[in-house]
C-alpha cells in the first residue's frame, strides 16, 4: 500500500497535492469537489484588503451621494445600509468549507495596512481556517526603497500576524529577493511555519495601439518549475519550516520533481483551471504509479532526496546548474 500522506506545517494531509489560491475556490461546491478528487488541502482565493477598501469606498461614495441628497428621494437602494463590505463573504466560505469538507482549509490574505493584516487574520482564524497563507504581493516600485527595507516589511508582517493568531502561517514569497535563503530564514524566525515558493506576479502587457498597459495573467507552464525547484532544493532541511512548491505543476512529473527537491506539498492551480478539478485525481494516480514503479512506499521515502543536502558536493550543485545550462544543447 503506497502512502501518499504528508505533513505540511502541523497539518496532516492525505496527499501532497494542495490546491493553491485560484478563483475556483470562490464556490464551496468546488472545494468539496477538490476534496473528492483527492486534494490534500485547499488554499482559498486571496482576501484582498485593498479590494475591500476600494469597494467600501465605492459603496460609501454611492451611499453618500445618493442618500438624503434630494427632496424627492431620500435614498435609491433598498438595502444599501445593510450592504456588508468586508470579509464577511470570505469568512462564510471558510465556515462552509470547513463544514462540508474534512481536509484542511488554508485561507490566503493580502493585506495593505497593519490594521488590515491583524483584523482580517483574526477573523480568518475565528472562522475556522486551519492555516493562513500570507500573500504579500508587493512590488517595490519606489526606487528609493532599499532591499533591507523590503525584506523587513515581510518580516514585520509575519511578526505582526504571528502575534495575532495561533494557527500555522505560510508565507508566499516572490523570487526577487537578493538573498532568498536569508530572507527565508528571517521569516521562519519571525514565526512562519511554511514558505510557499514562489508567487507569480501579474505582469502587465502593453497594447501598442492604445498605448495602454493591459493587465494580463497567463497560466503557468511546466517549464516554470525550475526556479522554485532550485530554491526548494537549496532550502530543504536547512530551515525548520515546511516548504510548499507552487508554479508549473501540471502533472505528476512536476509534483514528483518538487517532492524530490524537498517540498512537503506541491500546489496546483493552472492545471485544474485548464483541465478541471478531476485532474487532481489524475495527477495523484500518476504519482502513485511513479512511486510504485520506483518502489517508494511513502512520500517521505523520497522527499528531499534530490535536495542540496543530499547531493555529495553541494557547492558543485550550485555551480553545476549554471554550467550545465550554459553548456546545454539548447544553446548550440
Amino acid at each position, binding site marked *: 500500500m503506497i502512502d501518499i500522506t504528508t505533513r505540511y506545517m502541523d497539518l496532516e494531509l492525505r496527499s501532497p497535492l494542495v490546491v493553491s489560491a485560484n478563483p475556483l475556490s470562490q464556490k464551496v461546491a468546488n472545494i468539496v469537489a477538490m476534496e473528492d478528487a483527492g486534494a490534500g488541502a485547499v488554499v482559498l482565493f486571496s482576501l484582498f484588503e485593498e479590494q475591500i477598501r476600494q469597494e467600501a469606498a465605492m459603496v460609501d461614495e454611492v451611499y453618500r451621494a*445618493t442618500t*438624503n441628497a434630494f427632496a424627492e428621494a431620500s435614498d435609491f437602494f433598498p438595502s444599501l445600509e445593510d450592504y456588508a463590505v468586508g470579509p464577511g463573504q470570505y469568512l462564510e466560505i471558510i465556515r462552509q468549507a470547513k463544514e462540508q469538507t474534512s481536509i484542511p482549509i488554508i485561507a490566503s490574505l493580502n493585506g495593505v495596512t497593519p490594521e488590515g493584516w491583524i483584523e482580517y487574520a483574526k477573523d480568518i482564524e475565528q472562522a475556522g481556517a486551519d492555516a493562513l497563507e500570507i500573500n504579500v504581493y508587493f512590488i517595490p516600485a519606489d526606487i528609493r526603497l532599499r532591499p533591507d527595507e523590503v525584506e523587513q516589511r515581510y518580516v514585520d508582517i509575519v511578526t505582526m500576524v504571528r502575534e495575532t493568531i495561533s494557527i500555522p502561517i505560510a508565507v508566499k514569497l516572490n523570487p526577487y529577493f537578493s538573498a532568498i535563503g536569508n530572507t527565508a530564514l528571517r521569516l521562519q524566525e519571525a514565526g512562519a511555519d511554511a514558505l510557499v515558493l514562489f508567487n507569480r506576479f501579474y505582469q502587465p502587457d502593453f497594447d501598442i495601439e492604445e498605448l495602454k498597459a493591459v493587465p494580463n495573467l497567463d497560466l503557468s507552464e511546466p517549464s516554470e518549475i525550475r526556479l522554485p525547484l532550485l530554491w526548494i532544493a537549496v532550502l530543504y532541511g536547512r530551515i525548520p519550516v515546511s516548504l510548499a512548491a507552487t508554479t508549473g505543476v501540471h502533472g505528476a512529473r512536476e509534483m514528483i520533481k518538487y517532492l524530490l527537491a524537498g517540498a512537503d506539498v506541491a500546489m496546483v492551480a493552472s492545471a485544474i483551471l485548464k483541465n478541471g478539478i478531476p485532474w487532481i485525481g489524475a495527477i495523484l494516480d500518476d504519482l502513485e504509479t511513479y512511486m510504485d514503479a520506483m518502489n517508494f512506499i511513502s512520500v517521505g521515502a523520497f522527499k528531499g532526496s534530490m535536495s542540496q543536502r543530499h547531493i555529495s558536493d553541494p557547492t558543485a550543485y550550485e555551480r553545476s546548474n549554471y554550467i550545465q545550462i550554459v553548456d546545454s544543447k539548447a544553446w548550440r
Partner: protein
Amino acid sequence: MATNEQSVITIDGNEAAAYVAYRVNEVCAIYPITPSSAMAELADEWSAKGVKNIWGNSPEVIEMQSEGGAAGAVHGALQTGSLTTTFTASQGLMLMLPNMYKIAGELTPAVFHVAARALSAQALSIFGDHQDVMAARTTGFALLAASSVQEAHDFALIAQAATLRSRIPFIHFFDGFRTSHEVNKISLIPESVIREMIDDRLVLDHRERALNPDNPFIRGTAQNPDVYFQGRETVNPFYDSVPGIVAQEMREFAELTGREYAPVRYFGAKDADRVIVLMGSGAETAIETAEFLAESGGKTGVVQVSLYRPFPANDLLATIPAGVKRIAVLDRTKEPGATGEPLYQDVLVTYTEAFTEGRVGEIPKIVGGRYGLSSKEFTPAMVKTIFDNLELESPKNHFTIGIIDDVGGTSLEIDNAFGLDESGWTQALFYGLGADGTVGANKNSIKIIGENTDLFAQGYFVYDSKKSGAKTVSHLRFGKKPVRAPYLISSADFVACHQFNFVEKEEMLAQAKPGAVFLLNSPYGPDEVWDNLPQRVQKQVLAKGLKLFVIDAVEVARETGMAGRINTIMQTCFFALSGVLPRDEAIAAIKKAIEKTYSKKGRLVIDKNFNAVDRSLENLHEVSVPSAANAADGAFRGMPDSAPEFVRTVTQMMIEGRGDEIPVGAMPVDGTFPSGTSKYEKRNVSDRAAVWEPDLCIQCGNCGFVCPHSVIRSKFYHRENLEGAPAGFKSAPVNARGFPETKYSLEVYAEDCTACNLCYDVCPVTDRSGGGRAINVLKKPEDLDPLRDRISFFESLPNIARTEVNYSTVHGVQFLEPYFEFSGACAGCGETPYVKVLTQLFGDRLLVANATGCSSIYGGNLPTTPWTKDAAGRGPAWSNSLFEDNAEFGLGMRLTVDKQLSMARSLLERLRKEVGEALADEILTAPQELESEIGEQRVRVALLKDRLIGLDVPEAKHLFSLADQFVHRCVWLVGGDGWAYDIGSAGLDHALASGKNVNVLVLDTEVYSNTGGQMSKATPTAASAKFAAAGKRVGKKDLALQAISYGNVYVAQIAMGANPQQTLLAMREAEAYEGPSLVLAYSHCIAHGIDMEKGLLQQKLAVDSGYWPLIRYNPVLRKKGLNPFVLDSTKPAIPLRKYAYNELRYKVLTQTNPTEAETLMQLAQEIVDLRWKTYEEMAGFGAAAFRPVI
C-alpha cells in the same frame, strides 16, 4: 389614563403613519409619488424582512403601474375581503378618484394614507398643501387630518378603527413634507394598543361581505333612472354615524394611550372672541400662537378640525366658545372661481343652517383665507396677523397670508416683528450640500438626542431642486418641551456652514440669534479665517456678537482616511459646541451610533470613524474675533445686463432665496416662462472644470457630444476673427485639409461644469509625455474673470450656420448649437447627453412633450431652466403635462401641427394669386429633408409673411398666423422608463399605433430615478431596486420588439457610450421617418450604484455583454423590400456579470442573498442570450418576414 407602557421613537411622519398602516392591513397596492413614496417603501421593506401585522402575517405589498392601477388593485383586494391600504399624494390621488367613488359607494372599509400635496396647475409642485385631498372630498371617503408626526401615527390607527366600524373608507392625510418629512420624537403606539383598537369582529364582518363563490352575489351592477338615485341615498345613515364613531374611537384611544383627540378641538382662551378654524400642520402653529397671545390677555383661540368629512357640524358648533364674535377659516387649498374655499364654506353653512334652524342666535363674522400652498411657510407672525385682521372693523375676507398679492389685494401684511418665546429650545441650522452627508448626520443627531435623552427633538430638511450641487438646510430643534413648531427656524442658537464657499453666496447668518455659535468648515485656520471672510459675514459676526469656530473638516477627513466625508466630523463639532448634551456623553453617543451604523462594515471602518471623531475635537478651534471688519466690500455678482428683465428681477430673487418676496403681479399668469434662463445662473457647483489642450486635441467632438451639461462648445472660424482675443484664449488650426486659414476653438463653460469627468473618459488622445488627455478636469482658478472674458469672446465668434454642418458625424455635430444647456441634472447624468443631441439636431423647429420625472425636473424646475433659444429667437417649445399622459400630450401636439399645416396649405392655395403663384408652389412642394432645404423654406415663409401683411382679407391674417407651419416641425415625446414602460404605457402604445409622425425618446434608466429608484418594468432581471429588494425575477419588457410588431414604427435602441455614431444615426432616421418612431436610450444613472465617471464605460459594457443590443428597425427599408431590422452591435464579447457586477444594483444581492443572486444572474444571462439570438435571427431574415408597410 394611559395603561400601556409606551416607548419613544424619533421618526418622520411617513414612517409614523406607515408603521400603523402596515400592522393593520393585509395587502398594500401602491405606486411611488412624492412625498408619500417612503410609506410604501417602508411597507415593502418590512414585508421583505418578514415583519408581521397584528394578525401575525406579513402584508402583501405590490407596486402597480400607476396610482390608477393601485386603486384598482386595492378595490379588488377589498372586495375579496382583504384589509387593504395604499399610500399616495397629489396626482396619484387624482388617478385614484374613480375607484374611490366605487369603494365608498360599496361601503368598503379602507384607509388611504395621503401625504397631502399641491396639484399640477400652472406648474407642478411636489410640496405640501390640501389641494389633492380637497379634490377627493366628493368621493364619499371620510377625511381625517393629522397635524403632526404624532397625530399621523395615532390617526392612522384611529382611521382604521373607525373605517371598520363605520364601513366608510377614510383618507388619512397629513401635510406633505412639513409632516411627512419632519422628524420628531413621538410616543410609539404599543402593539397591544393597536390590537385593542382593532375589533376582529369587524374584520370578520368585512371578510363576510366579500365576494365569495361559495356564497355568490353580484356587486357593481348598472342601475337605471328608476333606482340609481335611491341607491345613492341608502348610505346616509352610515355617513351620519361617522363623527360619533370617530369620537368614540378617539376616546378609546385616549383610554389606552393618554393622548386625547376629538373630531373638532378647541385651544386657547376660554373667553375668546376671535378664533381661527383650520386643519393640518398649520393648526400647531396657530394653537401655539393663540395660547401665547392668550397668556398675555388676548382673547384668541383656535379650532382644529381633524375630521373634515363627513363634516362634524354639530361638533364644530359645540366646540367654538359662545363668546366668539369673529372667525377666520383657513384653507390650505385654492378653488378658483368658488365663493370660498371648502372649509370656509363648510363653516359658513354650518352657522347658517344653525341660525336658520334656530340653534344659534347669531352668526359671528366669518372670513376665509388661504395659506401655505406648496409648503409656503406658515408662521406665528402670520397667525398673529390673522388675529389682528379679525380685530378690524371690517376684516379682510378671502384673504391670503404668506404672499404679497399686489394684483387682487388679498394679502394681509405680516407683522414680522412678532415671534413666540422659543427660549426653551436649542435651535440649530446647518448649511450643506446634498452630497456631503449633512442631512444624514443631522438625522442621526436627532435620533441620538431623541432616543438617548429626555429631550424632545425635531428636524426638518430643505433641499433645493437641483440634482447636482444641491444645497440643503437642516433645521433642528431640541428642548425639554415638545417641539410643536412646524415652521423654519428664524432665530438660531447655532449655525453651521459645512461648505466654505457658501460664505460668499449664501445668506446664513440672518437667522442667527445674537451670541449664537457659528461653526465654519474652513480651509483657513483660526488665525487666517477672519481675513478670508466676506465683509458682509464679518459685519454680521460682529453685530450679533457671534462666537466663531473653525475646523478644517476636509483635512481631518483626509488625515483619518475618510476623504470627502465630513459629516461625522461636523456632527462631532456640533455636539461639542451646542451644549445640547454634555460633551463626553455626546461623544460616547456618537460613537455608539457609529458602531450601530457601521456594524456590517467591519471594525476597521468603525475605528476609522472613531478616529475622525477624536481628531475633530482636537482640530476644532475658536476664532478670536477682531473688533472690526477688514474685508473689502465685495459687490455681489448679479445677472448680466444681457439677461431679460424678468430674469434680472424675478428669477434673480428666486436664485437669491428671496422667492417668497416676489409679488403675485410679478408672476406669469399662466405658467409661461422665458426659455434659456439657466445660462444666467452661474452655479459653480464644482471647484474643478474641464480644460482643453489644443495641441493634443484631434477635434473629434467626442467630449462635447457626451457632455451632460452642454458646457463644451466648438467653433471653427477664419483666423482673422482671433483679432482682439483675450489673453489665454485657445485655438488650433482646424484639422481638415485645405483650410489653412481656418482655426478651431473649443471652449468650456467652466462655471457651469460639474467636473463629471465624462469628457476625459471619452477623449481618445493621451499625452504621451505627461499622461493627460486633450481634455482634463482640473482645479479652477480663483479669479474667474479671465475665463469669463474668454467665453464672451468665444460667443462673439460667428456661429456655424446649421447648413454648413455635417449632421451625420459626431465630429460635425459638435459645431451645432445645443438648445439644452446647464441643466440641474446630476453630475455625469446619462440622460441629458441624448436630450442635448436631440436639440442640436432639431432644436430650432422642435416641439417637446416631456413626461414628469427627472427630465421634467432638470428640464423645467425653477428658478432657471435649460431649454434655450438661438440668436434668431428659435428653439425648442417645451412643455410638461403630467406623468401618465405624455404620449397623448405629444400626440396632441402632432395633431395641431398636422391640422395647422393642412389649414395653411388650404389657405395658401386660396391665396396663391395674391401672394404669387411661384412662391406658393415653391412653398407647397419644397423638400425639407436637408438642413439647407429647411433654410430655404424659412426664407420663402418670411417672404410669404411679408406679402401677407399687405393683404387685407381674413384669410391672409389666418395664413399669417399659420405660415410658420410650412417649415417642417419635429414633435418629440421625451420621458423616462417609468412613463414609457409603466404609467404611460397604454398611451405610448396608442400613440405609436396611431401612425402619426411622433418621435419618442425614452431615457431608460431602468428604474424610477426621480422618486428614488423604484422598480419599473424596465428594471432588468437580477437587479435589485425598491419593490424588488430580493432581485427582479421577471425579465425587462422588450419595448423595442413590441413596437416592431406594429411594422410601421421606426425603432432604435441606442447607447451613446458604446456607439455615438449609431446614436446620431438613429435619432436622425427617427426624425426623418414620416411615421411614429421609438428610440430607447440606455441612460446610466446614480440609481445604478456606479461610479458616475464610468457611466459611458458601463454603457459600452452593457452593449458588449449583449445586454443592450444596438438595433435599428426602419420601416422605410421594408417598403424598399429590404430587411428593416439592423443589428448594429457585435456578438456579446463578455458575460453579463462582467458588466452587471460593476453596479451596486446587481451586486447588492450577491451580499444579501448570494444563492439567489447566482440563480438570477444565470437566468439573466439566459435571457440575454435568447434575446441576442432572436435579434440575430431577425437581422438575417428577408423583408417578407416583417409586416408590410404601406
